[in-house]
């Protein structure tokens, strides 16, 4: 138990200090935080519940648009803002910016959760590959439709309010880093709390055999929806942060980017090992480093590399890094994972 406290404290301190240790990579680090949130929350229903969704991008994009729209709409008419495009006629004061951001993030987290609850009953009745394809369709449809709506910029995109003019780029980077790091800590605590309760066991039961779980008297639908709603909450939050970070929202390239982000979150979770607490976190970190490397050194060929990467990961590492380590070094791995396992068990008792 003591070791874990040290471990977590170490990670926390490192996380807090990271922007000062690597000042050049602040934006990258905040993106990493967002990616970890996405992968870890995908893992709730993808890894633990066995419902492989390509559609969490729906909540991510929804959160992104909502956060930005609320931030603008609270103070200025939204339609005129969109029309003015790049040339700003309205400028947020710093109080307005932070106020808008705070309300926007709350809305960005709550609304996707409600949406997930509403559509959950219909969508989650599908199983296996039908669920996967259905959610893929949802994500792409959302992107195509939002690309046709005028008030949020349609095909031209939507500019989020610029960061107020205090402290310049440095302050902006730090603000978004700590925002996303805070969200990550929140997500991690929530997920860890969930994983140490009966709820996780129910999700695993649904994954292993849903009919039997139902026969055992578990209201599977209720738990499936709750699981999906938790995912949606954090996806929306992550989307809202990412929208502010990128500064520009495009319907199919940034927000409902099923081709990139929607696949990334699945890939990261699988790469790290789905169905584990640490798997998605490790997976996201490794993936992000890889991706940035590809993007830098193979510019133009990044999608080719990405496609090959997906195929290779899926064929050769379907169990992910955690699973691979478990096979390769059972005794060493036993120590690492048992710690996580034992921790969960101790808390159960």
């Amino acid at each position, binding site marked *: 138990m003591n070791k874990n406290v040290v471990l977590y404290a170490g990670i926390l301190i490192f996380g807090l200090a990271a922007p000062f240790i690597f000042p050049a990579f602040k934006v990258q680090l905040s993106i990493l935080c967002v990616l970890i949130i996405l992968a870890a929350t995908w893992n709730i229903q993808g890894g633990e519940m066995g419902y492989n969704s390509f559609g969490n991008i729906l909540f991510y994009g929804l959160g992104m648009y909502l956060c930005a729209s609320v931030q603008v709409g609270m103070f200025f008419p939204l339609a005129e803002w969109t029309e003015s495009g790049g040339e700003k006629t309205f400028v947020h004061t710093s109080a307005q910016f932070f106020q808008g951001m705070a309300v926007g993030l709350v809305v960005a987290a709550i609304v996707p959760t409600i949406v997930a609850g509403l559509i959950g009953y*219909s969508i989650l*009745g*599908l199983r296996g590959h039908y669920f996967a394809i259905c959610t893929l*369709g*949802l994500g*792409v449809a959302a992107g195509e439709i939002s690309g046709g709506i005028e008030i949020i910029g349609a095909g031209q995109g939507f500019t989020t309010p610029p960061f107020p003019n205090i402290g310049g780029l440095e302050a902006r980077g730090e603000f978004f880093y700590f925002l996303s790091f805070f969200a990550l800590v929140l997500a991690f605590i929530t997920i860890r709390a969930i994983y140490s309760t009966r709820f996780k066991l129910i999700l695993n039961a649904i994954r292993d055999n849903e009919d039997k779980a139902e026969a055992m008297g578990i209201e599977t639908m209720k738990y499936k929806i709750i699981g999906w709603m938790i995912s949606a909450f954090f996806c929306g939050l992550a989307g809202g942060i990412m929208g502010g970070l990128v500064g520009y929202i495009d319907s199919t390239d940034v927000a409902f980017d099923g081709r990139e982000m929607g696949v990334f979150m699945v890939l990261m979770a699988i790469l790290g090992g789905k169905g584990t607490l640490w798997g998605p976190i490790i997976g996201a970190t490794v993936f992000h480093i890889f991706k940035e490397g590809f993007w830098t050194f193979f510019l133009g060929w990044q999608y*080719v590399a990405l*496609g090959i990467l997906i195929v290779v990961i899926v064929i050769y590492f379907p169990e992910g890094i955690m699973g691979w380590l478990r096979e390769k070094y059972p005794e060493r791995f036993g120590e690492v994972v048992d710690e996580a396992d034992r921790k969960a068990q101790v808390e159960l008792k």
Partner: protein
Amino acid sequence: MDGILLGVLFALIAYGMALQWGVMNIINIAQGDLVILGGYIAYFMYLYGIHPAWGVIVSPIIMYFVGIGIYKLVINKVVDRDLFISILATFGISILFMQLMNFAFGADVVLATSGYGTTMLFDSNVVLPNSKIFSAVVSIVFAICLVIYMKKSKLGRAIRATAQNSRAAKILGVDTEKVYAATFGINAALCGVAGALISITFTIHPYMGLPYTIRSFMIVIVAGLGNLPGVAISGMGLGVFEEFADYILGTEFRIGSVFLLLVLILVYRRFKLSRKREYLK
């Protein structure tokens, strides 16, 4: 009318998907990208001065080998694994193809002009480009040939046997590995035909693959596996729906409405089945 002709093409693609889904239990997300690749083959023939209609013959031959190549490299490693793994793997192939085509052929929308005229029907109330009629006829011919081939030939029988029960087929001396490869090849060849026809009738673009995948998936789930008349009818239905959606909602919502329709169909079927406490398998 436009919609029906379009639907015949969709049905051809969907039949390929139903074939490999039934036989190999794989959902190929790269289906649409194979179609587009087939289209580019026809387009290149057009660029070199050959009439693109010949692409209908050349492109399936090339695509057959492309299909077998993909099978040997990737698919045979995922064929008996979890379905989700195969979805992800083909998604990877799809992204790969998309980008390679983007490099090789550029990101422009292209069209191979066939030079066919138009036909007027009912006192010129209905105007039909001949290229569309041509493509519909060719698709029907190919579909009929394929059905006969599946019924009569030795390989066709082997494919059907594997679809019914792959283990039993293996015991009875069918080389399932070969059957899988051939199925994937035939599917790719069908995509090649459809792609060549699409490049004549409509436009092709490297990023247009995914909608074709979704359309064929939709047709297959509406019609059911191995139900060829159903595939044809639901293909035409989808074609008509799209034309109407295009007309009523506007072109920018066309693709979106297709994807939304997929979600609605799946949800509808889920509720219909859940009354009997069953689910889509």
